[in-house]
């Protein structure tokens, strides 16, 4: 699609887009470049090419940020959150989308309002409640919090997928003698599975990257997520910027690879649910 055909306009557009790409990529380039350098070289010039390349940065980063433990914690936390959100939210999104209960409007509005509820409104009593129950440093406790925080968004996004399914499919299955549960699990779920995958990706990304809740509720160095492990490394344990950037790269690479491979779903889902990542 083109607005204007003139060559000058097109060139101008590419220049503007190029500047935008430079702004987006420059800090990322610095991250990659300096992860390969010894600290002394970074002090001299963070823009220079690494000479020689210092691969030990990655080994040191892996050990000092305790990634062999914290990556497991991150995977457990993100995995549990994804499972909880996808199961509970597909149930409620179905009921709300299909207006199966009389009070669907109230609950839709309620969840819509909680999508924008500030976390500061509930984090303080929640923290002291969790402390009393001994749930601090518990990855599954944090997964429960993430589930509550991300659910409204997931319900709203899944709702649009359920609404798009033709009503006739459901009616036909009921006439054939299927129970309500069978209609949901055998007819509806397979059709909306792309939506569920999109939700899983976005929720996974958000839980992987989350900072405020993780840093508040996970405090022992062995129980933190990879992102918090990086935060502790860069804030307290190390002043070697080569090592810090190497640790950053280790966390970022899986996310970026997944994003580039699944870009359509990510962008569609983010745009559809409008949530801040």
């Amino acid at each position, binding site marked *: 699609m083109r*607005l204007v055909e003139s060559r000058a306009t097109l060139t101008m557009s590419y220049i503007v*887009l190029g500047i935008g790409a430079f702004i987006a990529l420059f800090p990322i380039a610095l991250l990659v470049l300096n992860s390969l350098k010894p600290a002394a070289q970074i*002090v001299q010039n963070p823009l220079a090419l690494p000479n020689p390349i210092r691969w030990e940065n990655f080994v040191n980063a892996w050990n000092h940020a305790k990634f062999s433990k914290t990556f497991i914690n991150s995977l457990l936390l993100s995995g549990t959150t994804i499972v909880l959100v996808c199961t509970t939210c597909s149930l409620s999104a179905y009921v709300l989308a299909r207006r199966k209960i009389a009070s669907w409007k109230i609950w839709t509005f309620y969840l819509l309002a909680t999508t924008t509820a500030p976390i500061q409104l509930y984090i303080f009593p929640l923290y002291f409640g969790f402390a009393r129950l001994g749930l601090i440093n518990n990855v599954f406790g944090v997964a429960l919090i993430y589930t509550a925080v991300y659910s409204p968004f997931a319900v709203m996004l899944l709702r649009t997928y359920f609404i798009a399914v033709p009503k006739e499919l459901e009616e036909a299955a009921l006439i054939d003698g299927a129970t309500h549960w069978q209609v949901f699990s055998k007819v509806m779920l397979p059709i909306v599975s792309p939506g569920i995958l999109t939700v899983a990706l976005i929720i996974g990304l958000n839980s992987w990257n989350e900072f405020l809740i993780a840093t508040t509720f996970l405090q022992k160095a062995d129980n933190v997520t990879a992102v918090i492990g990086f935060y502790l490394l*860069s804030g307290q344990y190390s002043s070697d910027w080569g090592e810090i950037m190497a640790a950053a790269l280790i966390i970022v690479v899986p996310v970026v690879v997944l994003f580039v491979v699944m870009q359509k779903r990510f962008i569609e889902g*983010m745009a559809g649910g409008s949530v801040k990542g």
Partner: protein
Amino acid sequence: MHRLYLVPTLIINFVIVLVPALLTVVLAFCNWDGISTPSFSGLDNFRALFADSVFWSALINNIIWTCIFLIVPIAMGLLAASMLLIVKRGSNFFQVVYFLPVVIATVITARVWQGMIYSPVTGLFGILSRMGLPLANPLAQPSTALFGVATVDLWHWWGFLCVIFFAALRQVPQEHIEAARIEGANYGQMMRYVLLPAIWPTITLMMIMTVIWSFLAFDFVYILTQGGPAFSSEVLSTLAYRHAFYDLNVGQAAAAALVISLFGLVGTFFYVRLQAREGEQ
């Protein structure tokens, strides 16, 4: 029967969000250190909060933050999105590149900017100042700390808006664009009379969300400056966090949380109304 389908979502929501939120409202009128029994203290927390000059500077910082984010990333996003519409090839590539900062964890973004760009020792600013440019670390000066932090969040954020606006622009009927082009509209006229009006609902929604999110801004301030130097970059959410977990003055933290929520509530009201209107269409 179908009522049961809602139960898991609602139980989790009530336990984690609703009940603690109501407790926050109660705690705002109590004196509590997080351990002993809370005691009712009336409006003391609010009085103490309003008497604190840091509270007012944090509130002003939140308002400055909101203004910056209502203008800069939305303008950048709209400009880039309209350019994506003009070019034939590469729009997908640029879109993915612009979105990369959104998928990188805030802690990592913060540290890259802190160490590789702002730092006078290991960063770009260091080399440039050694070359004779008068560049100081913005995070170290009270007059620039807030803008230094906001720049990092802008970098992290504008690509998201660009992608959203581009998605909306692609929905604009081709005939409208063609018609304007035949009439000889230039870029400015095309934006003003065709494209912006067509995606106005999306822009409004993003502006409402910007207001809500601006009062929640936490990660970058907390990681980069902790609200300093001398509270110059403190915002309400970091102020509340400090009161609760550093000063163990949970009552006052709750009072600050209520102030944040008040601004959020106004935004939420417009957000729900807008969504409901779109839902009816």
